[in-house]
């Protein structure tokens, strides 16, 4: 709520820095997005954050678009653009240069080692993401049940996840949750 001198600069700095630490993709950075947007900058309330997460999962495109939604709520269209570019730009540049470097030095064994080392980290981050969004969205035992059923179905079957999102939305619409 505190009016910041320049929200665009804050978005660029927050997400630009975050992108370089988003090990394992955008969903791994959700705890940090929540910390920055809700706890540090007070851009969103807890409930708005859960809503924004839901909208981003319902929209097509890469999961990273949750930052577009956060940016919009901070500073409109300019904010949406700034947050998206800040979250994608630095790592895209890094990926470009690293891939060119690796093309020239074939058979480097470091990528394999670093990747193996990062896998447990990114799983831990994603588990933390799940916990943080669950704490804001799962407010009743029926909500918890829906989460568990969706997790079990997605784990054990090949049903298109979109159906589960729509089913969750319908149950919410009907006031079951």
């Amino acid at each position: 709520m505190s009016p910041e001198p320049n929200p665009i600069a804050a978005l660029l700095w927050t997400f630009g820095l975050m992108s370089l630490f988003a090990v394992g993709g955008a969903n791994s950075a959700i705890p940090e997005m929540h910390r920055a947007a809700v706890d540090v900058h007070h851009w969103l309330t807890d409930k708005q954050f859960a809503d924004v997460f839901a909208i981003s999962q319902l929209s097509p495109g890469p999961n990273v678009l949750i930052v577009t939604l956060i940016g919009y709520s901070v500073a409109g269209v300019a904010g949406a653009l700034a947050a998206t570019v800040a979250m994608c730009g630095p790592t895209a540049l890094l990926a470009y240069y690293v891939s060119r470097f690796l093309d020239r030095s074939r058979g480097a064994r470091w990528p394999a080692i670093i990747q193996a080392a990062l896998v447990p980290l990114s799983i831990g981050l994603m588990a933390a993401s799940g916990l943080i969004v669950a704490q804001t969205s799962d407010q009743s035992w029926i909500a918890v049940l829906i989460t568990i059923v969706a997790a079990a179905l997605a784990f054990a079957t090949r049903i298109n996840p979109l159906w589960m999102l729509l089913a969750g939305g319908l149950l919410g619409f009907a006031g079951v949750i």
Partner: protein
Amino acid sequence: MPPESPPVAAPAPAPSTPSPPHQPGLLELFLAFAKMSLAGFGGVLVWARRSIVEHHRWMTAEEFNETFALCHFLPGPNIVNLSVVFGARFRGVAGGLAAFAGLVGPPMVIATVLAALYARYGDIDVLGRTLAGVACAAVGLLFAVVLKMMMPLLQRRDVTGLVILAAVFVAIGLIRWPLQIVLLVAIPHSIAITILTRRMVKA
């Protein structure tokens, strides 16, 4: 006959001559990534693979896996990294930008429209309840991904991996320490442990 197999032209009539791989142009890159992005609800990777490997045959499955592994080990949104690396491989910097713009541009317009609608109507009770329901299911999907990714660690009885996983979960999810600090401590430790265990396995 199963309904999904069309009677004619079941195996795509692929040109049998393995001619030099077709080099996509800038517009083609933009459109291909826009298409896979707009098709991708809850993740674009599956569609990217289908489009790049199976439909356009711009890469073999192995090339795709290698490129994706690189983009997965680098920080940031993996599929965004993939689009830039892939586009640049064919058309240099302009190609990287074209693929990136295709992947992020159109969905970003949609997301911005949704954000504007939410800013105006987000307070309506029914909409709030509906989104809460979607969020419950979406969290479930996230946990399913976590479980799927954990299975190889569990099957290998990779105790150190599981301990690192749990430590990160506690530090970020429960204690809520900042990501940067946790990773600056965890990444070097995890790399060191990985190197040590590989040496021990070899020895």
